[in-house]
């Protein structure tokens, strides 16, 4: 396949950049075409999203970047964005006359590399090549580095993102740009060196994607890494960077599904607490209120630790809550930017997610508020959560969605399990098997999470997550004998754990590594819960919970 950057065009880059513009407004289409031509770009215009997708699919390596309007009659711009991301892995810029923060946020969450407000000035279009360039750089890095690289990258992203704390709010595209520009400059040299080695753009066919998903599930989300996936997939011509960027898109896709199912579940969004009770799964990830979560958790566990988590729907709920939780976590991870949450790192495995997945941030927020690890922040976060019902609702939805769709969507389930496994490296594989593996996973996740969280710093979370996971894994093994009862409750608890976490800012995660951690946890939790949070749980509930958790 022709690689745009290795073609003669490369010499005059960014001139000749192949841009596909999609907009249902004929006036804008004409103006944009003219503007882009003036920038010496090669322009193709499209009035319909469908046509655009067809064009992209026909000429797989025919475009370098896509610019699309958000509101189109035949297909939502965000959907198109996802498809392009998943199938073609091209940078996509969104445009709209509507600059509402929520919309911009959504764009970023869906993976848009930029969001332009109409009326668009030519100077804004002049620099769109940076997105293409940046992508190349990242892909090249992927080839070079492995987890360590990603770790570095993530930490960098993490630090950058934390600097751009407000990026999440969609108000900071420029700062993101600056950061990216900064990165690009550093990579320019590499880029030049590796341009010839640049991978061909991969088109992810259904088969290929299935292989990918299978591999991800097999590995387990916590362990998932492009190299591992690549090895499992056993596709000779596929490169690690291809897999890495696809993984990123996949995560976005899953989180969108989650959100959609949330909406379908008609949670309404803001008051998750109610929902949580009814739908433990959903509530799990959703933050609406820690209390709610805790209550849910407590309620679930109360009757019988052995019972599956959710009174109503033990398995599904567990899974879902877990999923939602995971999901929220996962999203959190991707959104390193979320200043409030250190935990964010935890959910999403290192990479690239941090950079791009803004959407998860929201979820993280919700999820995070529940995460204990960041004790001091935790409190802060929780407070923050409340005043932002709209945000949380959006987030909660996602979490909820997770629970919903998880069951129905094999992909999603895989995703979920991936996330879970992300936390608990070991048992991830079993995740799809809801009942048992779920439990195990939960358990592990719990531990991993705690360890991960405790040891996480915004920037280094990746790395620490990994090490923590390993550590917790080992710990788990150590306390294997005690795990059996725990496992069962673990699943249930997973959500609970997380919930508990919220209330337990002081949870000593470092203690997680200690085999006696489990034994200690209930105590800690209990204490912290009551002391630090308006613990919704009754002491009685809590003790039940303790029982469930208490393995030793």
């Amino acid at each position, binding site marked *: 396949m022709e690689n745009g950057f290795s073609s003669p065009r490369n010499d005059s880059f960014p001139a000749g950049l192949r841009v596909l513009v999609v907009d249902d*407004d*004929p*006036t804008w289409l*004409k103006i944009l075409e*003219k503007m882009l031509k003036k920038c010496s770009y090669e322009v193709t215009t499209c009035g319909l999203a469908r046509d655009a997708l067809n064009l992209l699919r026909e000429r797989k390596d025919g475009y370098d970047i896509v610019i699309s309007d958000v509101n189109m009659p035949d297909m939502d711009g965000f959907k198109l964005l996802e498809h392009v991301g998943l199938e073609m892995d091209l940078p996509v810029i969104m445009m709209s006359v509507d600059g509402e923060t929520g919309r911009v946020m959504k764009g970023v969450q869906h993976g848009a590399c930029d969001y332009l407000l109409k009326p668009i000035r*030519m100077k804004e279009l002049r620099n769109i090549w940076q997105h293409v360039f940046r992508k190349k750089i990242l892909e090249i890095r992927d080839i070079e580095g492995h987890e360590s690289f990603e770790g570095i990258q993530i930490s960098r992203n993490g630090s950058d993102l934390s600097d751009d704390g407000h990026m999440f709010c969609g108000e900071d595209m420029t700062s993101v740009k600056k950061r990216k520009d900064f990165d690009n400059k550093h990579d320019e040299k590499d880029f030049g060196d590796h341009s010839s080695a640049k991978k061909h753009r991969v088109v992810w066919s259904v088969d290929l994607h299935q292989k990918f998903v299978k591999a991800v599930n097999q590995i387990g989300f916590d362990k998932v890494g492009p190299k591992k996936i690549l090895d499992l997939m056993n596709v000779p011509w596929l490169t690690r960077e291809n897999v890495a960027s696809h993984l990123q898109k996949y995560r976005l896709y899953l989180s969108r599904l989650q959100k959609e199912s949330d909406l379908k579940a008609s949670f309404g969004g803001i008051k998750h607490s109610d929902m949580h009770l009814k739908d433990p799964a959903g509530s799990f990830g959703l933050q609406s209120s820690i209390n709610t979560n805790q209550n849910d958790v407590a309620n679930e566990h109360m009757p019988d630790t052995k019972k599956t988590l959710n009174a109503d729907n033990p398995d599904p709920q567990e899974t879902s809550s877990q999923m939602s939780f995971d999901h929220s976590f996962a999203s959190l991870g991707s959104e390193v930017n979320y200043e409030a949450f250190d935990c964010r790192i935890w959910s999403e495995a290192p990479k690239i997610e941090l950079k791009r997945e803004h959407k998860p941030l929201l979820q993280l927020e919700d999820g995070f508020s529940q995460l204990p690890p960041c004790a001091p922040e935790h409190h802060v976060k929780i407070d923050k959560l409340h005043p932002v019902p709209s945000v949380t609702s959006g987030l909660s939805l996602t979490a909820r969605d997770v629970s919903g769709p998880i069951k129905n969507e094999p992909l999603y389930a895989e995703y979920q399990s991936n996330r879970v496994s992300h936390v608990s490296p070991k048992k991830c594989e079993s995740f799809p098997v809801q009942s048992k593996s779920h439990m195990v996973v939960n358990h592990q996740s719990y531990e991993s999470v705690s360890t991960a969280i405790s040891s996480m710093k915004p920037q280094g979370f990746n790395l620490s997550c990994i090490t923590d996971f390993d550590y917790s894994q080992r710990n788990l093994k150590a306390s294997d004998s005690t795990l059996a009862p725990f496992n069962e409750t673990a699943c249930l608890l997973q959500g609970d754990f997380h919930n508990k976490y919220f209330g337990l800012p002081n949870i000593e995660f470092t203690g997680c590594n200690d085999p006696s951690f489990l034994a200690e946890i209930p105590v800690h939790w209990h204490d912290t819960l009551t002391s630090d949070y308006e613990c919704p749980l009754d002491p009685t509930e809590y003790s039940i919970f303790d029982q469930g958790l208490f393995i030793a």
Partner: protein
Amino acid sequence: MDGVVQLQKQLVDYIASLFHEGFLDEQFNQLQQLQDESNPDFVVEVVSLFFEDSERLLNELAKALEQKTIDFRKVDAHVHQFKGSSSSIGAHRVQKVCIAFRNYCEEQNVEGCLKCLQQVKHEYSLVRNKLETLFQLEKQIIAAGGSLPAT
């Protein structure tokens, strides 16, 4: 020659007044700057596209608001579109009415929407007339052998 100079001055003043009165904004300047030798009629072409699209949108809007049960989401979608296309040529006053229009849609205020529809139709015809006058002036200048003032 004198005539041409006169016409040119007229044109410059006219455009300035359109900006001053808020009919056009910076975006129109952008369009003018995009016009070049390879596209000498660029602005006229774009504005014509805008006129066409606007007629269509205004019809859709009128239809949607005539329904027994008004689908406000549909109305809002049309207004949103109109807002977008008016922003493309810098039809500033039209754009402003669209913003108010969208608010009424959100509130599901039928009366407000109908009022806005009238307003937006009015502003649209105003700016349309202004632009047509402008293009006429330009044609005259060209016909008289003059060149258009640089933007």
